[in-house]
């Protein structure tokens, strides 16, 4: 294969990957503190960071759909995770991947609303798929910025493998592994309610 045509394919599949990551995204309005991000985890359910969802009632928006109310159903500041139940179904949920199958060096892409830019993406490779004291975090070589928090990290197949949490210096992002999120949802008794997740988990 000619290098140039392969590069064209790479560019196309990278754009496709960004598109599928952007489909997982909702903007979470933080009263007076700008816009955070969230992941449509199951029909009618959004996962975001605890530090993004700091009130009982919130407003979220998916793409150019009308704004929708949401209720905080679970909140764990230690894991920095929160689950929101939406007042309306905002459409198709995301494909949740197996974060324990992530390999060092594989490609990941993170989506969010960095500095309020809607659906901004950043990409890089997995530095460490079992980071943090309990191994439930992902260390990633990409550029998370304020507003990415709560958005999805997807693998090269477009499956959600983590939730953006924080930057560790300018060039390293930390995300909460999808497996950790599933544990959090199970703990909160929400997995049963997210019927689709019973199959994914």
């Amino acid at each position, binding site marked *: 294969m000619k290098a140039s045509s*392969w590069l064209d*394919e*790479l560019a*196309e*599949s*990278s754009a*496709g*990957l960004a598109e599928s990551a952007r489909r997982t995204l909702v903007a979470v309005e933080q009263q007076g503190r700008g816009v955070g991000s969230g992941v449509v985890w199951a029909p009618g359910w959004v996962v975001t960071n605890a530090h993004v969802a700091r009130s009982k009632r919130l407003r979220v928006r998916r793409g150019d759909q009308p704004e929708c109310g949401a209720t905080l159903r679970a909140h764990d500041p230690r894991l920095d995770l929160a689950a929101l139940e939406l007042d309306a179904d905002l459409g198709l949920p995301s494909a949740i991947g197996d974060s324990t199958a992530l*390999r*060092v*060096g*594989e*490609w990941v892409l993170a989506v969010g609303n960095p500095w309020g830019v809607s659906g901004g993406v950043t990409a*890089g*490779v*997995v*530095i*460490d798929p*079992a980071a943090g004291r309990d191994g439930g975090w992902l*260390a990633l*070589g990409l550029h998370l910025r304020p507003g990415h928090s709560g958005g999805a990290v997807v*693998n*090269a*197949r477009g499956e959600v493998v983590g939730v953006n949490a924080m930057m560790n210096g300018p*060039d*390293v992002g930390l995300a909460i592994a999808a497996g950790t999120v599933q544990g959090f949802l199970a703990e909160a008794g929400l997995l049963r309610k997210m019927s689709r997740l019973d199959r994914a988990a």
Partner: protein
Amino acid sequence: MNAMEQLSDSLAAAVQSAAEGVVRVEGRRRMASSGLLWGAGDLVVTAHHTIERGAEVRVGLPSGETVEAKLLGRDPATDLAALRLAKSAGRALAAAEPEKLRIGHLALAVGRPGEQPQATLGIISAVEGGWRTPFGGRLDRFVQSDVVMYPGFSGGALVDAWGRLVGLNTSGILRGVSLAVPAETIERTAKALAEHGRVRRGYLGVGVQPARLAAPHGSSGQAVGLLVASVEQGSPAEKSGLFLGDVLLSFDGLPLASMDDLLTALGGEVAGRTVALEVQRAGKPTRVQVTIGERPAPSEEVEE
């Protein structure tokens, strides 16, 4: 599989294959660093600045086992240290062909500060010919990349997209810059450290400065020589009868037109050897035989 998935798979495969030759080096209190299996797999090379003085070093192998290692020696000038394991722990990584390395090629830094390997991705930023470090060591090539040096990555591998070794990563030679010490430099230094416990650099004992010759010298038309501006007392230079005002033209047949030429000539395995210097003295060519001494080890310049 689309192209992005292929790229992702290839990168993960390159890391997996490189990780077979990358070990953890526990040689300082703060945190472990990384190292490369070398030679027959019973040697480990790592970054000198990550091994504390007097440290009892342990090495974490790709198999997960942690073993004792003996520090064979260090070379602060190239920021390398060599360790010996009781038995072979695997194989050294295959090296990339240095002539094919180009600016812009993808490169992965692979380290193992913990149990499992870790990796960052970047590109080759600069490739140049031989280069002298600020500590006086000579690297066979200057290879800089923009990979993120994650904590504990010094001593680990910089590999190409196929997982082949480009060099040993260190941020201890130039601050804030990821340099890769090339395989030839590692090989030469590891050999010297295994044999002598140090890299022996030749000592002449002169201060010199470049000086234009009155007429081109020799068949190459050498235009510049090195004017002897000082001779240290008791040095090999003094013993051989070099004088102030002599102009050095060549060392063992190698032209001397710059300070770097002389440092390079003295950087080889020349300590203890008697070599011929071509000298211009009072305008006339002459030859001086000198027995090269050994430069005392520099103090611990890059010790953190």
